[in-house]
């Protein structure tokens, strides 16, 4: 697999969700880093410069929406593609697309995720596989 070296940041406040997504990605040859809230997520994104970010929307402290905005406003992170993984239902998709301050994410996945679709989306966004 030509996924070598591609690094993905997984941000979610649920340790089991983080465990699931990272295992899935690592089993498919990706490298992962994790964060459990938006603030930590932002710091990790700047430091680790991941190739892609998987982000939960409803987290305590700084929410995913806020982090999405911060990412798009920061030089070092604004080009990184983001996948939203969310427990919120799909009407949220139209909500966030209407927000002018927020660059819409590249893809949405509703929890619980379809793991094959998630992998396919990740690979196509990173142009690998």
């Amino acid at each position: 697999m030509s996924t070598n070296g591609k690094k993905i940041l997984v941000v979610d406040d649920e340790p089991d969700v983080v465990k699931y997504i990272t295992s899935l990605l690592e089993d498919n040859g990706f490298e992962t880093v994790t964060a459990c809230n938006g603030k930590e997520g932002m710091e990790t994104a700047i430091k680790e410069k991941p190739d892609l970010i998987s982000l939960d929307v409803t987290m305590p402290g700084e929410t995913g929406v806020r982090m999405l905005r911060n990412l798009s406003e920061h030089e070092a992170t604004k080009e990184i593609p983001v996948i939203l993984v969310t427990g919120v239902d799909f009407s949220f998709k139209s909500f966030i697309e209407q927000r002018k301050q927020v660059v819409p994410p590249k893809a949405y996945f509703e929890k619980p995720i379809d793991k094959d679709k998630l992998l396919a989306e990740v690979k196509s966004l990173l142009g690998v596989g």
Partner: protein
Amino acid sequence: MAPYNGNIEDFPGESGILFEKVPCYIAILDRDYKIVRSNEKLRNTFGSCRGRHCYDVYKKRSVVCEKCPTEMTFHDGQEHTSTHVGINKVGDETHYIVTTSPLMGENGNVDYVMEILTDITQIKSLEKDKLEAERLAAVGQTVAGLAHSVKNILMGVEGGMYMVEVGINKGDQSRTAEGWDMLQRNITKVSTLVKDFLSFAKGRKPVVKLIDPNVLLDDIVELYADTASKMGIELKKTRKKYMASAPLDPDAIHTCLTNLVSNAIDTCHISSKDKKIVILDAVEDGGNITISVSDNGSGIDYDIQKKIFTTFFTTKGGNGTGLGLLTTRKIVQEHGGKIEVESIPGKGSVFKIVLPRKQLPVMNDSP
């Protein structure tokens, strides 16, 4: 007050018409609590009165009521007001507020007491409807929130299944074990969530008993002090203040205190303060019983304070259902009281349950 000239049988002219026709219940009682005069509305609602004891007419009791306002007026010559639940002539619950006024004879003694009763049955039932409507609205919000929690948990379950599957395929024991843990953890979460939700949605009929609130506080300290102390948190009660027993639903108040204390312990647990402390207190002042739970944890930001009771709300991610305070508020309201919070971000919070004695529930077993 009706003109009293020593002759209780007769109020002349207009005052006589007024006495008969006013839209409230009026009765005049002698020192034996016998009704010597009553107006039309009273007789229509409670049945014939003449010569009967007031406690028999209003409440179908055979002895004088506790804290009888008429007794007090005979005793001190002052007006008294209180709220009661009676039974009308067709056997329906009738709520009323009674005000008792002295009718003094020439010697300045209280010869008779006049009772004026205002029927508040309708208001009471409106209040009940409103509580019910609020409960249903809260249930609705909760269902939306619940769907969200369930999705997170499902994701954990799928994660567990994935780990187990990969573990088995690769013959990797530790993976399988890890996956199994994830499964168990998330199944436990579902069952807790469902239990909490059901007890919230069902709404139980309160079981009211006369109890000293201090006893409930003692129980809580007894139950949780050990656990708290293992987490480095001191859970204690302030010095006990005397308080008369009150009609409360002990299990329900116990639930409230458990919720408040577990929130206080949660916030202390993540605080970095040296001395972490949670204090329970109960005082009575001006007819209000106030039970409070104070902590020196994180405190609550102002915009968060606005949300903690009204919406399905938690800052604890998957570890909180956000039902604790909602349930607590519901129970407190069912006791005729209210819950208040004072909090200074960074310093800590005080949650107060304020229960006006006058509005406490009526004992189930006495009329």
